[in-house]
């Protein structure tokens, strides 16, 4: 099992105007501690992820020219307000796994690993909205730590539209309110979108605004992740005496 190590990071997601309830102070910085697995603590959701490519993948599914990416999502029973046992193969986990797979197939350079399988396991430890985004960010760190070549960081954020303003990084309360919300996974350097998902109704005039809010928040996440990864690599190289 190749496990991703977590560098320390303090994410600061900026969202636009509207005053939001006290629990969602955008400036709340939570330090991430160094653990053997990539552990990301975003202002709302915490998730941990690791990559493993030692499992013997099925020979029948091996692709001759590129790697197979396999993502599994699971949610801890204590992650939401009420303790809820989620069976492993349930619909939400499968769907989330599929979305993660689509995101990472776009980002990982799979041509460099023919006939191999890359497994990414993500587990959400605390869910308070934006779980897809937290999973993507944590998985990016894990893949980077495993040394698997990627096109770019994949940074994600959710965004919604409430009372005429676009809001980034929604909490569970805001998501449950029923407004439109979209999840965006971005490759920051080129500005390419790895995944954009929304299942609600949003007037097309507002789409631009909401997308812009999500993109800006994703770029902020990228700054933090970039700084953290560089710091981690520097510390490790110093130890190696390079």
């Amino acid at each position, binding site marked *: 099992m190749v496990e991703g190590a977590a560098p320390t990071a303090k994410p600061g997601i900026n969202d636009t105007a509207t005053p939001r309830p006290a629990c969602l102070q955008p400036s709340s910085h939570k330090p991430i501690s160094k653990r053997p697995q990539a552990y990301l603590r975003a202002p709302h959701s915490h998730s941990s992820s690791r990559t493993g490519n030692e499992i013997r993948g099925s020979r029948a599914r091996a692709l001759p020219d590129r790697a197979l990416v396999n993502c599994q999502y699971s949610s801890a029973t204590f992650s939401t307000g009420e303790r809820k046992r989620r069976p492993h193969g349930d619909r939400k986990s499968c769907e989330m796994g599929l979305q993660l797979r689509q995101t990472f197939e776009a980002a990982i350079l799979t041509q460099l*690993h*023919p006939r191999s399988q890359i497994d990414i396991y993500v587990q959400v430890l605390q869910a308070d909205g934006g779980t897809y985004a937290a999973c993507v960010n944590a998985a990016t760190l894990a893949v980077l730590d495993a040394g698997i*070549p990627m096109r770019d960081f994949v940074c994600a954020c959710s965004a919604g539209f409430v009372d005429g303003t676009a809001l980034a990084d929604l909490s569970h309360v805001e998501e449950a309110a029923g407004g439109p919300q979209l999840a965006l996974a971005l490759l920051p350097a080129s500005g390419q979108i790895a995944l954009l998902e929304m299942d609600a109704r949003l007037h097309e005039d507002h789409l631009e605004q909401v997308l812009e809010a999500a993109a800006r928040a994703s770029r902020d996440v990228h700054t933090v992740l970039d700084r953290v990864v560089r710091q981690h690599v520097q510390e490790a190289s110093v*130890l190696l005496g390079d």
Partner: protein
Amino acid sequence: MGEEKLIASVAGSVERVNKLICVKALKTRYNGEVGDIVVGRITEVQQKRWKVETNSRLDSVLLLSSMNLPGGELRRRSAEDELAMRGFLQEGDLISAEVQAVFSDGAVSLHTRSLKYGKLGQGVLVQVSPSLVKRQKTHFHDLPCGASVILGNNGFIWVYPTPEHKEDDAGGFIANLEPVSLADREVISRLRNCIVSLATQRMMLYDTSILYCYEASLPHQIKDILKPEIMEEIVMETRQRLLEQEG
């Protein structure tokens, strides 16, 4: 990309040689190169070859024709040899081998065409990251403290008791199953803990560093070496000694 900018695909240290820019990732799977010594574990016995696990992205291959026959004889491998494959190497056996070739997809082909390679007998395996094993002229070392070590380039390190006499006739097939004395076992355990502590502190592993670490750890008990404070102390001392020796 519109601008002339180079973006790395992995996070690691940059090495620049004239116009060649290389980014070496901190922690990767083993990438085979011809001539490397590896220690691997047999995972499958197939027709005319064995699949060996060497901490790389794809399983390595050991062809029957690349394996030394007992007695060191050189002849064409027959159907009986194929049927007797499991008698030579089974699933779970450890071997030391050399990389003969690398396939286009990155899989590595091994050979044991020398009497110093072959099945490994009693000893301890330590798994570290491949980037920590220093490339040297020889990877088989007989340490003066009483044990021998094989530093596989793939990050598998094998520590074993030094054999009293060189067994040339066996060709590396017959595993020596005589009981190992307590003194030897202690030396091997101490060495193993030293290697683990060097790897945790991300120090390059080669015979000198392992030996210095062993000597620095002598005042402590074997089981204490793995405690974080003592580990740091021992590795610090090793590092200092290595710097003095080079400077």
